[in-house]
């Protein structure tokens, strides 16, 4: 009990949350892992358990170090209006547009195309009697329910609240009258609020990191191929930057992986080379997006246009970059600053690029041509004198 009280007190501040989270990890786990408000690193945490299986209670204890525990537990008893599960007949299902969005046939078609029976999230509803007919009004999962119908279901899974069983006190507390029209209005209000909460306010988009890790661990071939390249270069997919070789820009890494050669194949080769260069030159740095991506694009363009960039090119270019700016973050920032100076001073020639990856790629080409020019490179669509604005 004492421990729980101290946890409650310490979750009031950011510093307290960090302290209590770290203390719990230090005390109970041999292999340390991050406990932060936006993510608890479950994959590393799992390494502390035989077979990697984490009891939910252990996660719950860590959650308590990051959020204040709830003191009020709302009534979940189905007999008192709490939610319950049922298989419901088609004729009992209905929709009230006051608390639902329009139906999208193209979205239904999309779900239907990829439908598998084991991946159904149970639709949610309120059960109400209107004009003598008992209905289950769906407030979440209408598209899923329609797909189930297309799939030939005759009974439909529903997680519902029986409005006839909700206590009068609860209805009054929400500001509605306790007669039948008031009870119906309360039901609609509850459903509308739930709908917005589930679909808008509390929707947590799947992070790119979680997506790639799930794909890797469930054997997706492309994710495995990407992971092989990442691991081979001593990099690691991470949610947050900081660790040496941490690759957080996962969608962009996938974009670079997809770059193909002139025959439309050999995916991954340009990402591989860009990561190898990055790790070799800056071994303690996290992987910088606007270093590895412009490099990958430069390698691809050279390949497509028949220019051969030998290993010496990487050494020459990175030595030059390091001598001018040093670390990868300063390099990409420096090239972009130089670009914008030329753009605003109107000293550049050609078509200004509209994306940072192209700006930095042009900067790399321009810089190499201006300072080294040992081998020919693809032409830069926008030419300017690249310099360190701080130093010059």
């Amino acid at each position, binding site marked *: 009990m004492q421990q729980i009280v101290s946890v409650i007190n310490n979750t009031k501040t950011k*510093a*307290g949350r960090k302290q209590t989270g770290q203390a719990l990890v230090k005390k109970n786990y041999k292999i340390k892992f991050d406990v932060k408000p936006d993510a608890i690193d479950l994959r590393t945490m799992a390494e502390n358990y035989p077979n990697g299986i984490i009891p939910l209670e252990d996660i719950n204890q860590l959650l308590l170090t990051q959020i204040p525990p709830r003191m009020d537990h709302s009534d979940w008893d189905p007999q008192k209006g709490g939610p319950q599960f049922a298989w419901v007949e088609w004729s009992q299902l209905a929709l009230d547009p006051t608390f639902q969005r329009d139906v999208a046939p193209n979205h239904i078609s999309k779900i239907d195309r990829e439908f598998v029976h084991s991946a159904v999230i149970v639709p949610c509803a309120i059960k109400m009697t209107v004009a003598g007919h008992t209905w289950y009004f769906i407030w979440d999962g209408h598209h899923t329910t329609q797909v189930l119908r297309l799939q030939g279901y005759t009974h439909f899974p529903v997680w519902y609240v029986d409005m006839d069983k909700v206590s009068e006190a609860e209805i009054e507390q929400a500001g509605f009258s306790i007669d039948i029209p008031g009870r119906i209005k309360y039901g609609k209000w509850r459903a509308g609020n739930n709908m917005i909460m589930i679909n808008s306010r509390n929707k947590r988009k799947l992070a790119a990191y979680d997506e790639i890790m799930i794909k890797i661990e469930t054997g997706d071939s492309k994710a495995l191929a990407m992971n092989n390249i990442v691991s081979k270069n001593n990099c690691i997919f991470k949610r947050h930057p900081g660790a040496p070789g941490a690759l957080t820009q996962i969608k962009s890494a996938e974009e670079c992986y997809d770059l193909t050669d002139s025959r439309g194949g050999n995916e991954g080769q340009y990402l591989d080379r860009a990561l190898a260069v990055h790790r070799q030159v800056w071994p303690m740095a996290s992987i910088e997006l606007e270093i590895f991506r412009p490099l990958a694009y430069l390698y691809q363009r050279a390949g497509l246009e028949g220019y051969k960039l030998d290993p010496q090119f990487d050494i020459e270019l990175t030595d030059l970059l390091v001598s001018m700016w040093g670390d990868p*973050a*300063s390099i990409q920032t420096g090239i972009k600053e130089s670009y914008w100076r030329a753009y605003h001073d109107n000293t550049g020639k050609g078509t200004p690029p509209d994306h940072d990856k192209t700006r930095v790629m042009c900067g790399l080409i321009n810089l190499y041509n201006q300072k080294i020019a040992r081998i020919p490179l693809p032409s830069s669509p926008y030419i300017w004198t690249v310099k360190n604005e701080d*130093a010059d």
Partner: protein
Amino acid sequence: MDCEKRRRRLMKRFSLFYIFPCPLGDNSCKIGLTTNARIRLEVYGMSYSNRKHTASFDSIYYGSPTAIINLEAAVKTHFYDYIEPSGGRTEWVLDHSLSTVDQQVQNIINGHRFKIKKLPQHLLPLTLHNLNEAIDFIQKTPN
């Protein structure tokens, strides 16, 4: 331009990353960055009698403001588990001596290839007394 103006102008182009041990002897170090070492040393010095303690930076690194900001972030990430989370004390690295922190900072600089240099030993520790000499040195040996 007189010397003082020249020094102030120079320090706008450079930031300093400093490390000093706990003046009361605890096995911990304070790390931080500043663009105005004079004010920072004056502030740190005001908490103690000058007869007992002179505020000093025992290790100093200098470079562009961007590079120093990136260095501080990298150092704080590296020592995350040893940095006090409490408000106002987030620059104290606990359970590490000056030499171990300094060595790790050097490793981080090398590993990131930060364009940052260390102030030579003959100008350390940096205090208000040798600050001008240090600034003149930085001016002569910029990155």
